[in-house]
Structures are given as C-alpha cells and as structure tokens.
C-alpha cells in the first residue's frame, strides 16, 4: 500500500491565471484566501517561487513579480499548519541579512518556514527543468556552498540551546557567554557577527532545492531536505531522484533523508477525482517520489483541494491533521536539522 505523501503547491507572486484575475496577485486578500484554501486542502506547504532575472533589451517587458518574502506573515496570520517555503538566491542575497529574515519568519510562523534555495538567477521550476536563462553554473554552486556554510553557523552555532533566559525577575534576557560571534573569511563572504535573532523553532528553515544539473544534484544531496524534480515521465523523475539519493551517503546522510517532490504542471484534464488520485498514486509508485509540488493556478489548486483531496483522504494518501507545527516534522524529521545533516556539523 502507498504511504501517505507530501502535498505542496508551487506558485509565483506574479499575474495570475485566468487573465481576468491577473491583477489579483497585488491584493493581500488573494494570498490570504489561497493560504486558507491550501490549509483546508491539507497541503503541507506553499512553495513561493521567484527569480529576479530581467529581460535583456531584446526580451520585451518583464512579467512583474512581487517579493515572496513580503507575503508570508499575512498568510501565516490566517493559517496554523500550512508551511511556507520561500525562494531566495545565494547569488543575490547577503548571508546575515537573509539568515535573519528567515529566522524572523520562522519565529513569526511558529516554525513553518522553508527556504527554496536557488544558486543562480533562474526560478525553482526553471532550475528543475534545466531550462531558461540564469541557470546556476558550477561557480554559482561554489558560492552557494559557502553561503550555506555561513548560514548554518549563524543558525546553528551562534546561540547555544539554553542561552535565552528571558527572566523578568533578574532582568537577564540571555546568557551572553552562550552566544557566539561567527567569524568567517572565505572566497565569497567575509563577515563577523552574532546572529541577530535568538533561535527560532526550527533554527535552520526546511531546506529545499531544485537543480537538474550535475552540480545542482550534488548540492541537493548535500544540503536539501526536500528536492523538487521535474520530468516528462515518472521514469525520468525516478532517474534524477536515484542520482540525488545515491550521492547522499557521501555527505554522511541516508538516502531517505531527502524527500522528493515531483513538480506537476498539469493534471489529467476532465478526469474524475478518482482518476486524478490514480494518476498521483501511479507517480508515487513509478517515480519513487514522496509527494508533489503542484504548479497550478490558484483556481485549479482550489478545485484540487475541494474535489481530489477528499478522495486522497479516503485512500489514506494524505496524513492525518498534524498537531506538530514545525514544517520539518512533515518531512520526516523533528523540528531541528538531523544530526547527520551537514548543517549540524558546521565548524569554523
């Protein structure tokens, strides 16, 4: 029997489909509604795709895109369980600034945050398909590895467990001897600071990656707790998943520490809920994935939540309503990074 699977939605903060509703992406109410719909539909997470590459002078007007980070707390306010994985590129961000932004969100969402790591300038889906401009190259992955190393040290090593006291009687907020400045002098980054936020529920956000290139798969095998994989067929996806999982032991990890999510940009048209459920079950079996990232417009996601999810629940293909809030607990772990993960072992 198929195990319950992970269900996520992959959406850009861009003009929406159908065209008559395109401008609704500018309205906070649209995002709050989407989040509520996904939570009612038992989705584990909403993955907010993003990229910041812009067209050259040949490319026509850009498709506008909002900064996905800015959407999260409004959606968190109207939900309790739904996770939010936000895309950010290690080619564009400043490590201490991004680390604090993600820690802030992890605090404010009670541990429901993931980071969809992009190493270049393309978005999650383009990386997964290996298509489009701005794909990460080998040099981008060198930088990404160093970025992650710095981020782990800020998240995992700067504040020891037990450093936060918050004692009203004594007036002591933190035991400063248990809070350490992180000093890093590398090829791409050179900084010195304490992490500016105290430890959040997950410390390190759930780490996701979609990278179809050899460097991308290697990076995923080392860092990712969930990988997003696109392919023309379940067999194609299975090949990629196998390659990533096979590399995991060389980074001290078990192959099953990495959850695989197949990106599905369409579902069988006009099919009954039972047929769609059969289709998904087939993918789970054949593609060796643990779940899905449905790259569908909000209307289609709402339809899915309303019609297909009840069928999936009948078949026990979706987990029971979780009481654990941290996003990582839905991906086979506890709230914190596994001890075997490279981020738990970051050293100076």
């Amino acid at each position, binding site marked *: 029997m198929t195990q319950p699977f992970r269900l996520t939605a992959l959406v850009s903060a861009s003009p929406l489909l159908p*065209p008559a509703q395109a401008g609704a992406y500018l309205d906070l109410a649209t995002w709050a509604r989407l989040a509520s719909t996904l939570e009612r539909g038992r989705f584990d997470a909403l993955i907010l795709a993003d990229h910041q590459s812009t067209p050259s*002078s040949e490319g026509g007007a850009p498709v506008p895109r909002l900064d996905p980070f800015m959407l999260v707390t409004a959606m968190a306010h109207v939900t309790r369980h739904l996770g939010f994985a936000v895309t950010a590129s290690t080619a564009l961000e400043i490590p201490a600034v991004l680390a604090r932004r993600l820690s802030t969100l992890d605090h404010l969402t009670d541990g429901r945050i993931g980071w969809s790591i992009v190493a270049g300038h393309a978005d999650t889906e383009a990386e997964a398909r290996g298509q489009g401009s701005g794909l990460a190259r080998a040099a981008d992955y060198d930088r990404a590895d160093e970025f992650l190393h710095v981020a782990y040290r800020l998240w995992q090593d700067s504040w020891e467990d037990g450093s936060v006291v918050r004692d009203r009687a004594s007036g*002591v907020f933190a035991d400063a001897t248990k809070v350490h400045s992180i000093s890093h002098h590398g090829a791409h980054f050179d900084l010195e600071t304490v992490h500016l936020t105290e430890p959040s529920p997950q410390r390190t956000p759930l780490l996701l990656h979609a990278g179809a290139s050899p460097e991308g798969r290697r990076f995923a095998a080392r860092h990712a707790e969930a990988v997003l994989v696109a392919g023309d067929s379940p067999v194609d996806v299975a090949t990629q998943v196998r390659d990533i999982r096979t590399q995991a032991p060389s980074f001290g990890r078990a192959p099953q520490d990495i959850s695989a999510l197949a990106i599905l940009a369409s579902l069988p048209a006009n099919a009954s809920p039972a047929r769609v459920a059969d289709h998904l079950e087939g993918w789970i079996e054949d593609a060796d994935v643990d779940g899905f990232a449905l790259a569908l417009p909000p209307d289609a996601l709402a339809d899915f939540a309303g019609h297909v999810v009840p069928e999936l629940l009948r078949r026990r293909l979706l987990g029971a309503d979780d009481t654990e809030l941290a996003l990582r607990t839905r991906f086979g772990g506890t709230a914190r990074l596994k001890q075997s993960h490279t981020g738990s072992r970051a050293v100076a």
Partner: protein
Amino acid sequence: MSKEIRVNAFAMASPVHHSPGLWRHPEDRSLDFTSLAYWTDLAQDLEAGKFDALFIADSMASSEVYGGSYHAALRVGAQIPKLDPMVIVSAMALVTEHLGFGITSNALYEPPHPFARRMSTLDHLTKGRIGWNIVTGHTVSGARAVGQKSLTPHDERYAIAEDYLEAVYALWEASWDDDAVQPAGTAEAYADPAKVRAVVKDGPHFQLDAPHLSEPSPQRTPVLFQAGASSRGRAFAASHAECIFVSGPTPEVIGPVVADTRRRAAAAGRDPRDLKFFSMATTIVGATEEEARARLADYRRYINPEAALILFSGWTGIDFSKWDLDAPITFDSGSQGLVSALEAFSIADPNRVWTVRELAEHNAIGGRGPVFVGSPAQVADQIEAWVEATDVDGLNLSYAITPGGFRDFGTHVVPELQRRGRFKQDYAPGTLREKLYGAGHARLRDTHPGSRHRPLSAEPLQRAAG
C-alpha cells in the same frame, strides 16, 4: 483647526527599544516581539487610536560598543536580538485599513534593484501605506555583519546613499508607465513592452541595466523618512526626506535643526512645509496628575541606566563603560559614530552640560526624547507647547511599556487633542502620502528630486525580434 499634530508609534522588533529594563514590568508585552499576534494586536490598537503610522527602527548592529562586546547588551536585550521588520508588515496590513508603516532599511547594505522590488511589493500589498526610513548605518558591527571591511566614513555614507536613491527613484518612477499593464484579455503580454523601460545607470557606486520587476504601485516611491540631524544629514534630509525624525531632550535642541532643515529645503526649491518633522517623545498619562506620577514612579523601579548607556554608546560609537559617571560629556568631533547624537546633548543646548550619570538617568525611559507626564489635559498641554516651541509637525511616540503606552495615548490623549482641534477626527482616505499632503497626492511632489526621474532618459525595451 489649528495645525494638526500627527503621531507615529515608534518601535523596534526587539525586547528593548528606548526604555531598557521595562520588559520586566508585569504589564509589558515586549518579550512577545517574536509572536505574530503581538504585532497584529499592536497594529489594531494603533489604528483604533488613529495613529498615523507605525515606524519600526532597525539595524544590523550588535550593540558591541559598550565594553567592547555584545555581552552587556545581550544580557539585558538592549536592541539585540532584533527581527527583520519588513516581513512583519503584511500581517499587520491585513488587519488594518489606514495605518501607515515606516520601515527602516539601510541604503549601504542591500543592492538597489531587489530592495526597490521589496518596497514596491509592500506598497502594493498595503494599498499605498508604505514609508521607507533611509539609514546609512553608523556601526562597525553592522558593517561587518553584512560583509563590509570597515565602517564607511560619515559623509561618504551620505554620498553613497545619494547614488542609491538615484537608482531606486529611477526604478520606481521611470521604468513603467502608468498604463503599461494591458487590460485583461486584450493582449497576449501582461504589459506593453513599449511602455516599460530598462533603467540604465552608471553611477559611482551603483550600476544598473534592468527594468523594475514590479508594476507601478499606488505611491510608486514610498514615503521617505529620514533621521539625519548632523550637518550632512540635514542637507540630505532637506533634499530627499518627506518625513524627518528628530530627537533631543529639549526644544532648544530640536528647534534649530527643524528651522535649518526647512531653510535648506526652501533653498533646494521645495516648500519647507512639505517636510513633516516628528519629534521623539514618550507620554505617561493617568486620569489625574497623581495617577500619572505614580505610574512613572512604578516604571522607574524597572529602569536600567546601564542599559541606557549601552544604547547611547551604540548611537555615538563611544564606549561609556570607560567613563566616570560624573564626568561631563563633551563633543568628540573625531567620532565616526552618530555625530548628531552627541551634538544634541553637548553642543546645541548651551544652557546645560550633562554628566554621564544624568544622561543615563534621562535616557532610561524614552531615550533621548522628552517624557510628558500628567493627566490627559496636562499631557496635551505639554505636546502643544513642544510643537509650538520646535515647529515640528508631530511626535514619534515611544513607550515605557508596550502596548500599554500606545493604548493609553490613543484612549486618553487623542480625544483631548481632538477636542482642541489638534488631531484628526478620522483618517483621511487614500495612501500614506495622501494622508500627509492631501487627496490627489499619492505620488512624490513635483518639487521632489525623485520626480525628476519621471521623463526617463533610458531607452524603452525593444520588442523581441522575430
């Protein structure tokens, strides 16, 4: 009505803002700063009190001037830890309709292109209620955190910020025409490529060749806040700022800064009244004066003067842990820190020389600003007198305890100011800028330097070949 007095709430996403030690008070909720409910509750309280905006201070600094390390600050939560304020906004916007949000971001840290998109995103999502507090960072620890080798000298920071503003103005004002987005269903492309332009800029510090990633938001450029009180800071504010944050212990400190900055704005071709000054102040109000005094006495049992010195060390770059508490404070013109903070205490007010101890005691509640204590009528009297003496447009209201201090102000002082015709009866419609300048003024004034980017020199993007 007489000149309207505007009020922003002044906060930081940290256990301490300007009243260190008060998080120990049983009625204070400062320690809930990591909870989203704290912020949505606060936003709703502020909107109920008809506050103009919530202004959130921020930095990447780790308060390591005092004693040469972050240890002393961290022990008492003196502005460390602190959260990124920008991501808190959308939840607060969801539960309010009128409250503005002034968000601090450093012009020397994040590159202009992604930052411009962040602000445009927030301006869209809040329907035009966003302001940006432009800071340039005055701490070594903040500079090192973001990967800079050392702190950039004071005046050079403003030169870099000028270049940064040129870049973000062009992205906000010039890249997309108002009618660039095509009506739904009429065209294949969402936007008309002939009406979207790449911003081409080759500045001394920032180079760009890209269109803005966001379509025009209600205000395009967010309302611009700034807090420079040094000579170079005033020149910057006179040119760019729409709202200016000033702080000091007496009207004698504030008044000349306001007058000088308005004069410089006029010389730059702006209406000096287009600059809205907000003076930092804290109010402690009771039904009667006695009740207010008792409340102040209660709060003072929780103050932490050493932590006040930690914060002052951070602002000035001077390690006060090495000073004799009874030493007079003198102005050190060689300081790379916040020159204006020291000027405020030691130079601009010729009537008083402060000792370190006096300064610590003074700053322990409400930082460098005054504390107005009394019945609603007495507090209103003090506010009116302060506004009269300084020519500021309103207050940046700090607190002894939160959200109680803000709630008390909204419940007791606002109605009194309304009775006197000094405070709005209700919010004006429209964006934050329209609330400041009136209906029809959602965009930068024509006299503002950012507006000069509107007829853009950059080339339109060409249609794709073939």
